[in-house]
């Protein structure tokens, strides 16, 4: 077995056998799904009980209010506002809705008041506003003489059907799916880099603190050791990711059955229905089939590997430059920043215009390209851009690995004080 393979195998086995790795692998999807389930469950409980609200209407046209799903209305006995307030408090109702009298409907609409002990949630107020707004609108139609039946009959639903010049039909749903796939891919790359890059760094520090490093590098080249470490860790990481995805999907579908999720989210369900109507016969399978799937998968592999190798070699160099984990923060921050930037720029720029100048620039810049380009690719990116971006990534990767290997080679044998950026620079230049 070659030495590189030996190192990869040892790193992989050491990671996978680690107790915290095993616990993390099986516990985090459970925790994630458990949390989500809990949140859904709690919010369901939270809104389940309707609130009792007293109302006092001095406005003749509104004399009774119908209960809604979340509000139970009770007419106040007292006809004077101050008494009604006292009565509401005595009866321990949630609040008092007061509709004043006025000849002008517009003035009525502006002067409605709601009294309560603590400030009510915005959802409740919105519900009341909608409810009263509808009632007042009907009254206003009557006042200005609009025939509601005619109004209803004359409403027109307008849909703009989007298609490319080649005649490929598309829709908002398709765009959403593209954004979803792109963001998922980009986000996955970022998470993977941060989690497993850190793991590479810790493993380098471990070799330094346990003082085994000099023994190892008297047998193998430091570069082989660094590369073996990165590859071994990424294989362990891939294994963990795959297990997470499998467990996650499994648990989600079980939890979904138990909670009967769509029924509890009427709003989303309605939206979904609307979207489905909008798509007018686009079914999900054809949409997915029409995406540049081969392109997405190949690019994902290239950008994922390129991005991870690029960043993890920097992580390895940081690990070599310092003696303990607390000293790493100063050096890790500049790595995290382009990653965060990539995700935020990716979300903002790609969603508004996947082919705009900012999105294109960030999908070329090697430190952000793995994430941003992955977000753009589902929308169809010209081949030359993808290839240029890949080439830039590869070149940067080679350059960074050269620097990182140099810092690594010198750093692993340096003990004592934490080096400054200036010292790192002299390592690269002079040694």
């Amino acid at each position, binding site marked *: *077995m070659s*030495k590189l393979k*030996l*190192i990869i195998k*040892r790193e992989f086995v*050491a990671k996978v056998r*680690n107790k915290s790795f095993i616990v993390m692998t099986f516990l985090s999807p459970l925790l994630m799904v458990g949390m989500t389930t809990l949140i859904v469950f709690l919010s369901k409980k939270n809104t389940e009980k309707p609130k009792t609200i007293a109302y006092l209407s001095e406005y003749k046209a509104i004399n009774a209010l119908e209960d809604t799903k979340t509000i139970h209305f009770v007419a106040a006995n007292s006809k004077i506002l101050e008494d009604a307030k006292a009565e509401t408090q005595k009866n321990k109702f949630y609040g008092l809705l007061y509709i004043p009298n006025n000849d002008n409907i517009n003035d009525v609409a502006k002067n409605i008041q709601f009294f309560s002990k603590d400030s009510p949630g915005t959802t409740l107020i919105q519900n009341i506003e909608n409810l009263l707004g509808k009632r007042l609108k009907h009254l206003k139609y009557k006042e200005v003489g609009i025939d509601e039946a005619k109004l209803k009959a004359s409403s027109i639903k307008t849909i703009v059907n989007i298609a490319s010049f080649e005649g490929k039909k598309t829709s908002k749903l398709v765009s959403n799916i593209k954004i979803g796939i792109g963001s998922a891919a980009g986000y996955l790359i970022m998470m993977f880099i941060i989690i497993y890059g850190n793991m590479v760094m810790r493993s380098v520090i*471990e*070799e330094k603190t*346990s*003082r*085994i490093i*000099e*023994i*190892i*590098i*008297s*047998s*193998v*080249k430091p570069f082989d050791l660094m590369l073996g470490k990165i590859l071994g860790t990424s294989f362990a990481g891939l294994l963990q990711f795959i297990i997470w995805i499998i467990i996650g999907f499994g648990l989600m579908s079980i939890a979904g059955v138990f909670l009967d999720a769509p029924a509890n989210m009427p709003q989303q369900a309605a939206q979904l229905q609307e979207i489905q109507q909008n798509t007018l016969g686009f079914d999900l399978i054809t949409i997915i089939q029409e995406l540049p799937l081969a392109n997405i998968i190949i690019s994902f592999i290239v950008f994922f590997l390129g991005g991870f190798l690029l960043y993890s070699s920097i992580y390895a160099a940081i690990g070599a430059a310092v003696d303990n984990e607390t000293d790493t923060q100063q050096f890790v921050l500049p790595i995290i920043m382009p990653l965060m930037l990539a995700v935020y720029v990716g979300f903002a720029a790609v969603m508004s215009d996947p082919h705009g100048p900012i999105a294109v620039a960030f999908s070329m810049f090697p430190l952000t390209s793995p994430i941003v380009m992955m977000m753009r690719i589902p929308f169809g990116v010209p081949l030359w851009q993808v290839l240029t971006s890949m080439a830039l990534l590869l070149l940067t990767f080679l350059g960074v690995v050269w620097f990182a290997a140099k810092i690594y080679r010198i750093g692993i*044998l340096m*003990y004592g004080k934490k080096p400054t950026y200036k010292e790192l620079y*002299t390592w690269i230049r*002079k*040694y």
Partner: protein
Amino acid sequence: MNFLLEANNITKKYGDYTALNNVSISIPKQSVFGLLGPNGAGKTSLIRIINQITLPDSGTIILDGKPLQPEDVANIGYLPEERGLYKSMKVGEQALYLAQLKGMSKQDAQKSLKMWFEKFEISSWWDKKIQELSKGMAQKVQFITTVMHSPKLLIFDEPFSGFDPVNANLIKDEILTLRDNGATIIFSTHRMESVEEMCDNIALINKSNKILDGKLNEIKKSFRTNTFEVGLETTLEKTALLQEINTHFKVSESNLKLLDNINTFTVSLEKNIPNDFLSYISSKGNVVHFVEKIPSVNDIFIQAVSQKH
């Protein structure tokens, strides 16, 4: 003479700092070679160059007649001063891993390790993790991982640190046995008494330069001062006695302690032969002690290093 390792005109600079300045050493086959020098003199730099951990700026290393090759890691065993093992890895697995990195096949490594573990009576540690072992125990494992691939050249940097006297002796005997079985050993330490006991040749490096090297005996001869320590049983008062002798020979006080309360002093006999002195002094009393002061490695070390300042 047949040398296993020749380092010729090695120079190594780190930035503006010169770690080694034109250093050459030759290590005869099947010998123990003491590489000595104060802290920061450049010993570790030289050892790292021999191990191909770093490359020299100029100069060549010849191992067994051929320039040093990357494959030669299999021919060298290195126990660095800063050493350790993976704490959470099992002893046996770790030793196998390190042996395979040195180029051994798994089968050979297993065989060799079994032999060494039995020799050191530590076979029961095979499945323990390093973090469960004491420092001395871990050092034993570390020693085995250095020698398990039977290399031609063994480099030990402070091999006895972390060992109690009993185990230090065990390791010392193992090192000498390895030499007798054909290995050549570079031995770097600050414990001068073990240099006296073990080394056939030494080189002394100070401030990046080699200031002394050769056979230990010959170096000692060149540092000999023809000074003798004398113990005299006499009724004469000491100050008067020394004054009296001083008229014929060069004497000085000695801090030699003998068992009985006896006058002691040192005499320098550069021009005279010992017999002249003995026949003179025997008239003054009973000579109970007469020994040449042979310079210790410690004396040579201190003298050589402070001379060059």
